[in-house]
């Protein structure tokens, strides 16, 4: 318990530091101006969210292999936390894109595959809510999770190779070339902080899922008496 509170406090302090760094330490971008500062938050959340989905995929595989409930709890936890991250990404993206590109949305590879990823994990959670029996729910959703994760690179490359005939409005340098050293330091600090924060969310949600399971068992015991 104490460890969880400590992790929470650290995560929130780090978040405040990361926000300070993005607003006051990083230099203002020359062409995009102040709006570019959303990048530190937007891209860091995206990285953390994708990492979470990867953990979800591993948890799904482990569940299919080992059939231990803890992997099912980890799977649903990561799916929900990852979905929250990607939702933030899908909201902050257009806020950045509109002033810079002049449009809210474009069907380019990264945007589209992120959006399909979001849809797939919504289906994953939906599927879970529609199967009553716990073991069957765990197994079937783990299997769907594996299929969904395999699909994501295919979506990305199909869009990249066949849908982006016109080069997408290219202003976003991303984390790639030509990032100012201070900017890159601030960015990687943000990425680190987001991972810590997401780890905190995962731990909390995991404990909640475990508690739910315990309550279920207790309830059944009471009913059987």
């Amino acid at each position: 318990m104490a460890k969880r509170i400590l992790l929470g406090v650290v995560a929130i302090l780090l978040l405040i530091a990361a926000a300070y760094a993005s607003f006051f330490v990083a230099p203002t971008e020359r062409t995009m101006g102040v709006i570019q500062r959303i990048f530190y938050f937007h891209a860091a959340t995206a990285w953390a969210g994708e990492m979470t989905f990867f953990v979800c995929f591993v948890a799904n595989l482990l569940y299919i292999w080992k059939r231990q409930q803890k992997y099912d709890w980890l799977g649903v936890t990561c799916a929900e936390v990852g979905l929250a991250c990607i939702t933030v990404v899908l909201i902050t993206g257009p806020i950045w894109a509109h002033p810079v590109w002049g449009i809210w949305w474009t069907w380019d590879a990264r945007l589209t595959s992120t959006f399909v990823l979001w849809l797939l994990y919504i289906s994953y959670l939906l599927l879970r809510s529609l199967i009553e029996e716990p073991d069957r729910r765990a197994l079937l959703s783990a299997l769907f999770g594996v299929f969904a994760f395999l699909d994501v690179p295919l979506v990305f490359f199909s869009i990249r190779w066949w849908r982006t005939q016109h080069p997408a409005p290219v202003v976003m340098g991303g984390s790639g070339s030509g990032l100012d050293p201070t900017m890159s330091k601030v960015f990687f600090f943000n990425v680190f902080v987001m991972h810590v924060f997401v780890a905190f969310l995962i731990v909390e949600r995991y404990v909640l899922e475990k508690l739910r399971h315990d309550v279920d068992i207790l309830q059944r015991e009471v009913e059987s008496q």
Partner: protein
Amino acid sequence: MSLLSNTATLLGKELRTEFRSRELLTTTVVFILVVLILFSFAISPTAEESREFGPGLLWLAILFAASLMLQPCFLREQTNDTLSSLRLAVSDPFSIFLAKLIANTLFLLLTEILMLPLFAVFYNIPILPKLHYLLLVLFLGSLGISIAGTALSAISAQARMRELLLPLLLLPLLTPILVVSATVSVSLLDREPIVQWKGIAFLGVFDFIFLTALWLFGEYLLEE
């Protein structure tokens, strides 16, 4: 070898069940036809536009039709609980999937071949010049739809709201098929047709990846 002979027997069973009633085929053909006509009403395309959008609409109609057509695939086995007997009868449960997905691919292809002439007439697109390539794309696309669809219909058959759930699970998963098949078909049906081998290879890769995943994880899908 038992995998092949089991699959052949089960495939025979799937085909017999369908061709006794032909319910699935008739409804799917009518469904695709209705959707294609409604699309045409909704956008009323000119000759150029229908060349540009027609193939995409055709694939969209196929996708919608498939998400309905794959519904009874495992549901049918539930009514008399024949699935457990099937699982006892075969040594490798993968043959159940293989038989079902081959049957589904055949059904889809058959409906597509029936629809193609009507599509050509309604959308004023000559399909004959590159017909064999178009059939290849239709085959690889339908195979991909059937592989993913058969796997997911085994999942959705065990959930509540299954009729709605299957399209929700399946359609986002099939995004790559839709994107690539539609693009390749557009360039095949263009005034100066081009065969996009890269796209055709991509469809093959999609089929291969999901077939391998089904082979690895199929038996868990049928666990009681």
